[in-house]
């Protein structure tokens, strides 16, 4: 479990997060949304001790992120994927990129090969292992960055707007991969501006002005029009359609959140 207990953070005089209390359970798929400057990225960097709170406490499986001796373990347990994969690459081949992290945590050399290959296989990039990272597409680069994290055997993977710079194909491939990883038991924490991506989560958290202003199942959060309007958000089209239909007297079951599901429901219920 990842726990934030009354956490505050500021850059200089500017408070970015105010008294955040939050628990993220193992196996969750948590999506964090909110306007630019709401503190989402700061929250993600606090999760693996990249930055430290000035008030409060963050525990990663009971390890305090403020104890320097815990950081190595915490960064292995909580993997962070950023917006621009190019900022993260340092090696000359895809394979070396994945190996690099393993060397840092002193994995036995004879085990490295198989760990790295397994990780690349999981993200569908094994056949690219000898390719130079700069020759890959954006989505492929992001998948290599994910493989490098997977090789460290994390429990929690934080995606900080990891689809924002990708073309539609890249976006889709990363979303699909995120869901596979969640199905395999990884805890996923996903920060995004794309509302339709947020629908895939088990829980959505809305951050604004450094505080949590709403949280719950995606359907519930998006059905709350006040939350949407007050936080610079938008309602995904399937939920807009449901809203319009219900105004017209056609009620679609709550759990249906895809266009396919809604249109099929109307088709079959008549």
């Amino acid at each position, binding site marked *: 479990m990842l726990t934030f207990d009354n956490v505050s953070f500021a850059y200089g005089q500017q408070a970015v997060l105010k008294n955040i209390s939050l628990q993220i359970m193992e196996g969750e798929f948590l999506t964090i949304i909110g306007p*630019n400057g709401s503190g989402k990225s700061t929250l993600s960097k606090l999760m693996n001790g990249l930055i430290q709170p000035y008030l409060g406490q963050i525990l990663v499986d009971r390890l305090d992120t403020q104890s320097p001796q815990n950081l190595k373990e915490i960064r292995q347990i909580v993997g962070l994927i950023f917006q621009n994969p190019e900022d993260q690459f340092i090696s000359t081949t895809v394979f070396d990129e994945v190996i690099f992290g393993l060397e840092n945590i002193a994995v036995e050399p004879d085990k490295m090969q198989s760990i790295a290959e397994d990780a690349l296989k999981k993200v569908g990039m094994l056949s690219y292992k000898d390719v130079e990272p700069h020759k890959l597409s954006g989505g492929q680069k992001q998948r290599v960055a994910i493989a490098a994290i997977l090789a460290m055997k994390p429990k929690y993977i934080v995606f900080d707007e990891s689809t924002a710079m*990708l073309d539609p194909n890249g976006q889709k491939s990363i979303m699909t991969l995120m869901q596979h990883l969640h199905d395999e038991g990884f805890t996923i924490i996903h920060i995004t*501006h794309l509302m339709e991506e947020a629908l895939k989560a088990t829980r959505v958290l809305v951050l604004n002005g450094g505080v949590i202003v709403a949280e719950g199942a995606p359907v519930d959060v998006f059905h709350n029009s006040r939350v949407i309007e007050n936080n610079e958000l938008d309602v995904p089209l399937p939920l807009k*359609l449901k809203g319009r239909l219900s105004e017209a007297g056609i009620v679609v079951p709550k759990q249906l959140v895809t266009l396919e599901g809604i249109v099929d429901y109307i088709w079959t219920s008549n």
Partner: protein
Amino acid sequence: MDIKLENVSYKYPSLSNDSWESIRELNCMFETGKWLSVIGQTGSGKSTLMKLLKGLIAPTAGRLLINGQENKLSKKGNAQIIQEVGLVFQYPEHQLFETTVLKDLAFGPKNQGVKKEEINDRTKVIIELVGLSEAYFDKAPFELSGGEKRRVAIATVLMMNPEVLILDEPTAGLDPQGSKLILQLVHDWQKAGGGQRTVIFVTHQMNEVAEYSDEVLVMNDGEIVFQENPIALFREHDHELKAFGLDIPDSVKLLKLFEHRFGKRIEVHSLQEEVVLEEVVAYFTKQGDDLL
């Protein structure tokens, strides 16, 4: 200002022999007053095309015609910046560098030799147009929010009074309302030009393409594969688009699902979400009884 490309190719200079053509034999027309959206996978040649249209690079083959005239190239065949074309790069707020918003706004026209009074007049109009106010003039760019910075950065380009405005992924990284504001302000700027202002809009977000485009230009592997109106393109060519790694807007997905399930095609005059929602819901309710 009409911009026409005739068999335009561009090959990036390279020291090795493996120099490659970024774009190949493009033939297309950017017509005055239209909103053209340009889509294509990363690496399909979109950015190269934008640089050509601004005159930052010159075609290595073919001709670029402005109002029927070939773009004057200097004697060495170097590129010549086209003043009438304004280019908003990706993450343009990284290029704000003055100490105040007002100085950033004035920088471009000042360099073009525009008179002080004229610059003053323009700043007042443009700051309102981007949804801010004169109260922002004395603020330092770093004091602004991400969305505000982006709008100021776009304003600095509008200050130079372009006839053609190119925007390269102008909403990347912005929250949904921030993105909507950008699209709206570009739309307002275009409308205020009385049909003389052209918008060339590069994006990966198909839902944004659905909002305002008159035409969509699809690039794949350095070539233009479609130039069509959005309704025809997304409704008729979704399979081809998929093959190019592209998607269709959510509003078109809804129309297609409806068509597939109910065997009825709904004609729409726009792909805007609001328009499509209204049409579809009307079918489910008013005409729904005969339909079901």
